[in-house]
């Protein structure tokens, strides 16, 4: 059931360093590895190339890393919570809710700021968490989460928010607004800055810390509700806690990088294939793999379509799905 996780985790860390180093070199400015090391060790903001490296490229890469890690962990938790490997982080309508929040701002507040406060991420976070709340209320019965009902509620409420978002798109009228709404929904890291990085970082840190204590409960939950209860697990409370962590993480990522698909569905699967279902290192590995996956996708996006890059949500599916199909076939044979 379980294989040693440490070698895999170390391999992931190594890959991360390589991807970060390569990622730092891709952009409009010519940069070298010696410039990168100079910028990291003796940062001089007067040098435009160093400024670009530290203020633009590095936060972008770190946001990709955190978003990938957040979505992968969140997907892992959702799959454990409802005990269904088809679950993904957007199960509870987070993506469509976030999109609805952001579209509302794009349509009705073209200035995008109120007293200097940048609205889209806030609105997306509100939309994402608000929708999640509605789904949970509809999907729970007397304080207990009923997985099947939760899945259905997620689909239904998701359809509703998607339609409302569609209505706003229809009302948006100008081409620029339409483009903004569309591109937001495909996800991207172009607005990354040091100021926003603490939010996903803290969410991920707190989430992983809590999960460190929940490790055994998480594995018991995978045995199914009846056996987990028989083995003394407070199933209802565990599910609520997982739900809270997962939706907080997803909401944070969606608010800052848009609803990037596919990562949260697939990375948990790959994790379990490689390490087994109950390994202690599963969550850390899942986070690292998710981060690396989005780093790689962002790198490809920027290499394929400079300078702005393809929306990363397109790349995750374009490159992720063939790989996933390959794994499925290989596992089946």
């Amino acid at each position, binding site marked *: 059931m379980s294989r040693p996780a440490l070698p895999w985790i170390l391999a992931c860390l190594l890959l991360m360093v390589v991807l970060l180093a390569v990622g730092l070199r891709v952009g*409009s400015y010519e940069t070298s590895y010696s410039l990168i090391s100079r910028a990291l060790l003796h940062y001089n903001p007067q040098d435009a190339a160093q400024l*670009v490296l530290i203020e*633009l490229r590095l936060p972008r890469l770190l946001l990709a890393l955190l978003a990938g890690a957040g979505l992968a962990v969140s997907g892992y938790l959702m799959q454990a919570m409802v005990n269904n490997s088809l679950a993904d982080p957007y199960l509870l309508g987070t993506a469509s809710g976030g999109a609805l929040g952001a579209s509302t701002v794009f349509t009705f507040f073209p200035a*995008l700021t109120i007293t*200097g406060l940048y609205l889209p991420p806030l609105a997306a976070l509100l939309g994402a968490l608000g929708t999640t709340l509605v789904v949970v209320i509809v999907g729970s019965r007397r304080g207990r989460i009923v997985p099947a009902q939760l899945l259905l509620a997620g689909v239904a409420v998701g359809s509703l928010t998607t339609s409302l978002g569609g209505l706003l798109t229809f009302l948006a009228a100008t081409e620029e607004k339409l483009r*903004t709404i569309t591109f937001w929904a495909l996800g991207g890291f172009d607005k990354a800055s040091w100021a926003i990085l603490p939010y996903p970082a803290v969410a991920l840190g707190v989430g992983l810390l809590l999960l460190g204590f929940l490790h055994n409960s998480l594995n018991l939950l995978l045995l199914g509700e009846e056996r987990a209860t028989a083995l003394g697990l407070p199933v209802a409370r565990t599910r609520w806690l997982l739900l809270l962590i997962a939706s907080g993480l997803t909401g944070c990522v969606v608010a800052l990088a848009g609803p990037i698909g596919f990562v949260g569905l697939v990375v948990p699967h790959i994790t379990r294939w490689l390490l087994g279902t109950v390994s202690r290192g599963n969550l850390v590995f899942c986070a690292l793999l998710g981060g690396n996956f989005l780093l790689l996708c962002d790198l490809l996006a920027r290499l394929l379509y400079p*300078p702005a*890059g393809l929306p990363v949500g397109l790349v995750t599916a374009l490159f992720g799905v063939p790989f996933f199909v390959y794994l499925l076939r290989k596992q089946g044979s």
Partner: protein
Amino acid sequence: MLRFFRSVATARKLLPLLLLATACQPEKPATTEAAAPQHLRDDLGRELTVPARPRRIMSLAASMTEMLYAVADTATIVARTQVCDYPAAALRKPVINSYPLDIERLVALKPEVVFTTEGITSLTDAQRLQELGIPVYYQRYTKVEDVFRGLNDLGRILGRQPQARHLTDSLRAELGRIASATPPTASKPRVLAITWSDPIYVYGQNTLFTDKIALAGGQNAVVEKFAQPYPALTREYILKLNPDIIIGGTFGKMDSTFFRLYPELKRIRAYQTRRIYRVTDDLMSRPNPRVVEGVRELQQVVSGS
């Protein structure tokens, strides 16, 4: 600064006079009624057949409505779209929603030909209209000269050649005066024109802006050719461009919105020298008979007066 206001004022005065002049031409007697229909090829290379002297016409683009008002007999214009707001006389025409296109209402008004601009009306909509027997004529403008040619083409199709010729001659003369007023400096300031701030969209190399800013004595900061006319740019790309001038709003407005969102961009020369300007939206974005007025406005921006 005073000179700027005065010249804009003259340009503003000039155009209604021209319009009046064209509108006052006596109509020819209807002897050409029986003339053979015109077989035309529009700017996109699409072939279409238009009556010899269309008496019911309309446009599906705000800029094209301005073109029609400058050349056509205004009584023949049967409708406008919700975005057509110039000249003021256009506001009195019935409104047809252009996006999404209200085909039923359009057909009910029985236009004999519909004019539009590339990129504004979808080819699918045009195809639908053609199937319903309404030819759609597209124009495309990449240079200021194309706008003049477009006006003359409209004049030819609508049987209003002298009016169109008169208008374009005076517009060309006006443009010549602007060119002679532009000091022949060695360095042409590089101007970045921003259309949207999130994501950052700008006027690319293959837009009319490139020619207009060149005529005004500057150059489009975006030299690279992208597939889209209005490419999305990264902050890094704009830092590297380091434009001398930015068009997109007043300095105060841009400082509190754009540069608040992207503080790293405060390093660029345009911000450091506060050469950030607002220009009239419609003059900037619409390829219309007021194009020369737009060039004049850009010239004020470039010369910094």
